[in-house]
């Protein structure tokens, strides 16, 4: 299954195009938490007129792009420890309040990166036993509470393994928590035993997904 190497194909979305898929799912005026990694690209792709309020779990609501060398501040960062700027109407708060916003269901959409995601909607993104531990950070909290949890990941690992599985094999971040998956090949909805294909990137065929037929179901 791992033999389809997407990087050799023209038929896939760029990371910015993946971000655009996420942007399409956002309602005007909604609040949005963006995880570390690919999800941070979403911030740059949102039209300002959508009036989205970006939350970063280290304690800010109203993230707005990047600072200039003049306006940069050591105390103004996002959860990826990158420098940011904020828009008018932003607010700062402590970590208990920040995670309460998430846990309490006040953040509409949460976008996370992932190592694996499965048909049950479970996500693995914090460790590879014996190889790598980054820690879960806020991810285990972020997957609970948001009305819409989106995972953004490349469809295949560098080794060529599909990251969309029947069941995750890596330690979970959350069980049955993911609503939508955006890869470079398509948008998917986990339905329990399989993934519903919501849409595919232009020119991509089901065969290219590297998934068995039983693991795939088309949108009804």
């Amino acid at each position, binding site marked *: 299954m791992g033999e389809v190497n997407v990087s050799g194909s023209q038929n896939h979305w760029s990371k910015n195009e993946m971000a655009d898929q996420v942007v399409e799912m956002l309602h005007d005026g909604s609040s949005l938490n963006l995880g570390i990694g690919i999800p941070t690209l979403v911030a740059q792709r949102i039209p300002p007129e959508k009036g989205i309020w970006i939350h970063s779990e280290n304690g800010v609501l109203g993230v707005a792009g990047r600072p200039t060398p003049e306006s940069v501040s050591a105390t*103004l960062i996002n959860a990826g420890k990158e420098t940011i700027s904020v828009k008018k109407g932003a607010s700062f708060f402590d970590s208990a309040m920040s995670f309460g916003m998430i846990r309490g269901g006040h953040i509409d959409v949460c976008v996370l990166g992932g190592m694996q995601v499965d048909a049950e909607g479970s996500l693995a993104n914090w460790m590879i036993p014996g190889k790598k531990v980054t820690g879960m950070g806020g991810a285990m909290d972020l997957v609970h509470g948001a009305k819409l949890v989106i995972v953004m990941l490349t469809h295949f690992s560098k080794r060529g393994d599909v990251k969309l599985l029947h069941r995750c094999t890596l330690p979970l971040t959350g069980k049955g928590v993911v609503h939508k998956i955006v890869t470079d090949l398509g948008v998917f909805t986990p339905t329990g035993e399989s993934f519903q294909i919501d849409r595919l990137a232009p020119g991509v065929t089901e065969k290219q997904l590297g998934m068995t037929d039983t693991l795939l179901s088309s949108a009804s």
Partner: protein
Amino acid sequence: MTSKVFKDAEAALFDMKDGVSVMSGGFGLCGIPENSILEIRRRALKNLHAISNNIGNSGRGLAWLLKEKQISRATCSYVGGNPDLEAQMLANEIDVTLVPQGTFSERIRAAGMGIRAFYTPAGYGTEIAEGKESRAFDMPCLLELPLAADFAIIKAQKGDPYGNLWFKETARNFSPLMAMAAKVTIVEVEQLVELGEISPEDVHLPGVFVQRIYQGADYENTIEIPIFKDET
């Protein structure tokens, strides 16, 4: 009346001993108590239990103490970007407990606010749930206990002699919560201001939670990942 104001880190940390638990504020290197950490290094305190979201980062902050093998136990949520911690974890030189960040902050708040335990969905169905009580409400949850400490070392932008604090931008993060949860809270500030200079409505942490405060010095205020407009 005994004053809460101390001359410097050396004076404020006078009674910190080997083996104590120390909460340290900051997210990555943002808002960390640089002076207090360096004083712990200078005093070569050993066998510490560090409680902090990141146990330092990029070789700085609490990583200054990791390098000197002063921390034997760590409770944190994230170890990425911290090569000193990763190396000691792999070498089994340090006992690390990972806690989901929202649970971490709420457990610290619980300790400060006298909440004896609470239920949260974070971590249910994961390795984190092992050995923990679970219970179903609208969704399955884990029972989590308060997280307290002997000392908290934190940094604020402004503080007054009673210990009322005001934090700048995202430097607030865990610091006010840790101040509530420790037996002895030691604050270093960029600006030690007069009583009444922080508007009573805009005190971010009331001074009742603070035992000692001092004017900090020589801040690095390191920016870990500077990204500017029109870069990615």
